[in-house]
C-alpha cells in the first residue's frame, strides 16, 4: 500500500513541477502582460495543487493534511487577487492602439 502511495506522490509532485516549469516558460516567452499573468497564475494554482495533492499521503497527522490544503487555498486566494490587481493596472496603462 505504501508503495502505491509513494508512486502516487512521485507522479503528482512531478506533474506539479511540470506545471511550474510550463508556467515559467510562459512567463518568459508570452508576448504581453495579460498572457504572462495567465501563465503564472495557472502554474501556481495547478502546480501547487498537484504538489500538495502528492504530499497528502505523506502527511504524518490529520492536522498536517489540513495545513497543506490551507496553504494551497491561501496561495489560490493570493494568486487570484494579485493577478486581478495587476491585470487592472496593465489594462489601464496599456498604450492605446
Amino acid at each position, binding site marked *: 500500500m505504501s508503495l502505491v502511495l509513494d508512486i502516487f506522490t512521485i507522479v503528482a509532485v512531478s506533474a506539479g513541477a511540470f506545471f511550474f516549469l510550463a508556467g515559467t516558460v510562459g512567463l518568459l516567452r508570452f508576448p504581453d502582460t495579460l498572457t504572462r499573468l495567465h501563465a503564472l497564475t495557472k502554474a501556481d494554482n495547478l502546480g501547487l495543487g498537484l504538489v500538495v495533492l502528492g504530499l497528502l499521503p505523506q502527511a504524518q497527522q490529520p492536522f498536517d493534511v489540513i495545513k497543506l490544503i490551507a496553504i494551497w487555498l491561501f496561495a489560490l*486566494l493570493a494568486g*487570484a*487577487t494579485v493577478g*486581478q*490587481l495587476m491585470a487592472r493596472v496593465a489594462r489601464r496603462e496599456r498604450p492605446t492602439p
Partner: protein
Amino acid sequence: MTLALAVDISLALLVLAVAGWIIAVRDTFGAVIGFVAYGLLLALVWIRLAAPDVALTEAAIGGGLTGALLIGAAARLRGTEAAARAEYPGALTRMLAAILAVTVTAALAIGVLALPDPAPTLAPAATASLAMTGVGNPVTAVLLAFRAMDTLLEAIVVLLALLGVWSLAPDRAWGGCPGPRRLVDPDGVLAYLARLLPPIGIIVGLYIFWIGADLPGGKFQGATILAAMWLLVIWAGLADTPPISRTWLRILLVIGPLVFIAIGFAGAITAGAVLAYPEGYAKPLIVAIEIALMPTLVLTLALLVAGAPQRMPLQ
C-alpha cells in the same frame, strides 16, 4: 552526492545570484522586488539550517515588512530616478567605492575564516538553564530571559524609527493621519480580500504569538502578520489610519517598552539584578512582557509602513 546536498547547493547559488542581481540591476523597483525574493530564499536557507525561529522572522520582517517599506520608498523615488541616473559617478569615485567594498568584504571574510572550529557556543548552557525560565522554546528564553536587554532595546529602536518617520510630516499635517486617503471600491478584489482574509490572519497571528513560548514563533512574527492584516484593511479603503495625536494610540505605542522596563527594574529589587526575574515567576512575567509588547509592535510596524502623517482627519 545526496539529494539534500544538491538542493542546499542550488539554494546557496540561487541566493548568491539574486544578491548579485540586486546590486547589479539599475532599476530601483526591480532591485526591491529582488530583495523580497532574496528574503524568502534566505528564509528557506534558515529552515535548511534547522533554525525555524530565524526563518519565520526573516520571512515576516526581512522579506515582508522591509520589502513593503522599500516598495513605498521606491514608489516615492520614481520621480527623481532619471535625474539620479544621469549623475553617473566619475571613474575615481567608482574606483574608491570598489576599493572600500572589497576591503570590507575581505575583512569580513578574514573574520569568518578566523573563527575557531568548532565555534564557541553557549547553547548547552542555555539549554541547561531552560527549566528555570519556564518556557519551552530556547529561542524565546534567550530573547526574554538570558538576553532580555537586547530585546528591550530592539523594541525601543522600532519605536524611535517610527518617530523618525513621523518627523517627516509637514507642519500642517502634524497630528493627522498617515498616508493618503484610500477610496473603497466596493466591488473591488482588494476590498473582497480585505473582508475575507483578516479573520483568518488574526487567528494565525495570535497563534504564532502564543505558540512562541514553547515552539518556533513569537511576538515579532505574530505582530507582523497582525500589522499586515490591518494594512490590508487600510489599503482596501475599509478603514482609515488613526490620527497620530490620539491618546489611545500613543499609550499603546509606549506600553510595551514601559511594562518591560518596569518589570526589569522590579527585578533589581526582587531578584537582585535589572531584568532578572524572581524565582518561580519567570514564565508569567515573560508572558506579561510579551502581551504588553504585542499591541506596541503591531501598531509600530503597521504605522512604519503607513508612513508620515499627510492630512488632517475629516471632521
